[in-house]
């Protein structure tokens, strides 16, 4: 009792107000509620900042659909990062979950019910099946062998979708996708009335944003669970992890399934957004894009991969359309990527955190 009171009073008297504000901030920023609030605030203001920020020339602003694509790819990058950033497994075949789910969603929507939610759920289920079956081959392998075989499996699915199953998948022409109102009630393509319409555009944005926030909250919880710690331990020293008594295979399996599940959500949302799906969503270049986005933004964090997606899609969707420089968007992006990763191996997010901690330590010196 008495020790508790002395400790409490010490805390309030010893700390200077400025440093205690920083300490409070440090405590808050690691709570789950803070992550939830941040995710909600982000999805609430992001489209407006991205597409309509005042004083920015029109050429440099993005368009409504790009904001929705950022959230979809953001989900994908978070799923990918869960495997590489948390558990240390580099997959070069995440297109299999993305494209697989996209096809399952599209086929369900076209042939059974075109409800967006149900279709996405079916797509996710298909991605889950892939994520449960493939580890029996993949998890025997390590490092580069794991990466190559994930790539091989995804490419196998790509070629299967392109030729033998052309009648179902539409082959290289792809497949138009139907979409009915959500639960028969809300037409997702309709504009949201009033001020919220100006902020967010159509109901489709809210539909995608709901998945996005749910994924961020889910991932944060997993990171704060025993799994989050054990995944990192496996990444750091697999041998040691097994010698403390952990069934490393099963934890890697769990990480793989969680990652495929989240990638499947993104894959299912995309055909609902674009009314289309095609074999290129199974192609290895798509797996490569998500690697680049995640590494550019910052591996192992939640904010990093999303930041990477924003920059990548901004280059692809906006810089691409600029006059002179537009033709060189990919080159510009590649140069930016190399420069960032060379100076800051932890990516753009690592750059931001290292700058902010340098500012803080300078303040502390004074």
């Amino acid at each position, binding site marked *: 009792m008495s020790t508790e009171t002395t400790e409490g009073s010490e805390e309030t008297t010893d700390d200077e107000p400025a440093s205690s504000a920083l300490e409070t901030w440090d405590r808050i920023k690691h709570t789950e509620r803070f992550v939830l609030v941040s995710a909600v605030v982000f999805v609430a203001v992001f489209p407006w900042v991205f597409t309509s920020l005042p004083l920015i020339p029109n050429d440099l602003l993005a368009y409504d659909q790009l904001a929705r694509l950022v959230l979809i790819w953001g989900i994908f990058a978070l799923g990918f990062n869960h495997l590489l950033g948390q558990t240390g497994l580099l997959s070069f075949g995440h297109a299999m979950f993305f494209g697989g789910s996209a096809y399952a969603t599209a086929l369900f929507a076209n042939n059974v019910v075109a409800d967006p939610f149900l279709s996405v759920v079916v797509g996710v289920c298909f991605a889950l099946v892939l994520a449960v079956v493939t580890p029996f081959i993949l998890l025997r392998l390590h490092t580069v062998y794991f990466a190559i075989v994930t790539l091989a499996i995804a490419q196998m699915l790509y070629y299967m979708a392109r030729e033998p199953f052309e009648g179902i998948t539409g082959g290289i022409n792809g497949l138009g996708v139907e979409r009915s109102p959500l639960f028969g009630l809300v037409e997702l393509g309709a504009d949201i009335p009033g001020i919220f319409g100006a902020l967010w555009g159509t109901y489709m944005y809210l539909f995608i944003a709901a998945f996005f926030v749910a994924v961020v909250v889910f991932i944060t919880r997993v990171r704060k669970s025993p799994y989050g710690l054990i995944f990192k331990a496996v990444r750091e020293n697999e041998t040691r992890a*097994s010698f403390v008594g952990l069934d490393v295979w099963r934890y890697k399996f769990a990480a793989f399934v969680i990652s495929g599940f989240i990638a499947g959500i993104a894959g299912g949302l995309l055909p609902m957004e674009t009314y289309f799906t095609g074999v290129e969503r199974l192609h290895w270049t798509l797996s490569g894009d998500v690697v680049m986005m995640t590494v550019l933004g910052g591996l192992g964090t939640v904010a990093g991969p999303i930041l990477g997606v924003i920059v990548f899609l901004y280059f692809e969707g906006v810089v691409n359309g600029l006059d002179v420089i537009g033709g060189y968007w990919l080159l510009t992006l590649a140069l930016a990527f190399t420069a960032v990763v060379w100076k800051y191996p932890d990516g753009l997010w690592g750059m931001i955190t290292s700058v902010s901690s340098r500012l803080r330590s300078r303040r502390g010196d004074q």
Partner: protein
Amino acid sequence: MPLLETRNLTKTFGGLKALDDVTISVDQGELVSLIGPNGAGKSTLINAITGMLEPTSGEITYAGTDLIGLDPFEIAQLGVGRSFQTASIFPELTVRENIQVAAFATEHGSFSVNFFSRRDSYDEVRDRTERILETIELGDNAAEVAESLPYGDKRRLEVAIGLATDPDLMFMDEPTAGMSPGETEMTVSLIRELLADWNMTIFLVEHDMDVIFDVSDRIFTLNDGAIIAKGTPDEIKSDPAVREAYLGGEAE
């Protein structure tokens, strides 16, 4: 009944016999040491017992359970812990997290479906972690990233991870290698504490003969994969075969 027993354990790599018909037994509560020149097969023997290597032939039983064919994590779950020759830690985790990983494996088994519960809600894991931190005197560095510790502390953390698995039998592979005299002394007193207060059985591999003769109840001597002598420190000191193979060579 002995706690650990190997019978006619043999391991060959190609034509090389790394372990040759090794038959040893360890009783509950003992401290046994394994000595032998470099390349005698000491690490091979530990690796075979703890599941890292599959022996070519022979038997290993621990507390009545056959260990042959079990995975390292299954053997660890039975209560066989080990610390490694190199500081085998989780470098980017904090000191506390390093121990927590092992504490989770001890309290919740080799695999547990709890990916949706917060890990700070596990009191038993926290208690075990804090107790280990205190025993191994790493409490002041608990929040530091393990990578940033000095070498001696990394080795102690490595032993701490082994301890957090709550072993009944602990293999310690050269725990004092690369340590300063002060750190070695600290490790020796830790070993004594483990025997006395933690009721542990310890299987020690060590190069420091002063440490070996100081703490061991019994000593096995390995040469070219075969056991050439077993006995108390005094018996080993005066054993002609040991002197020739090992001690004599060193004294010259």
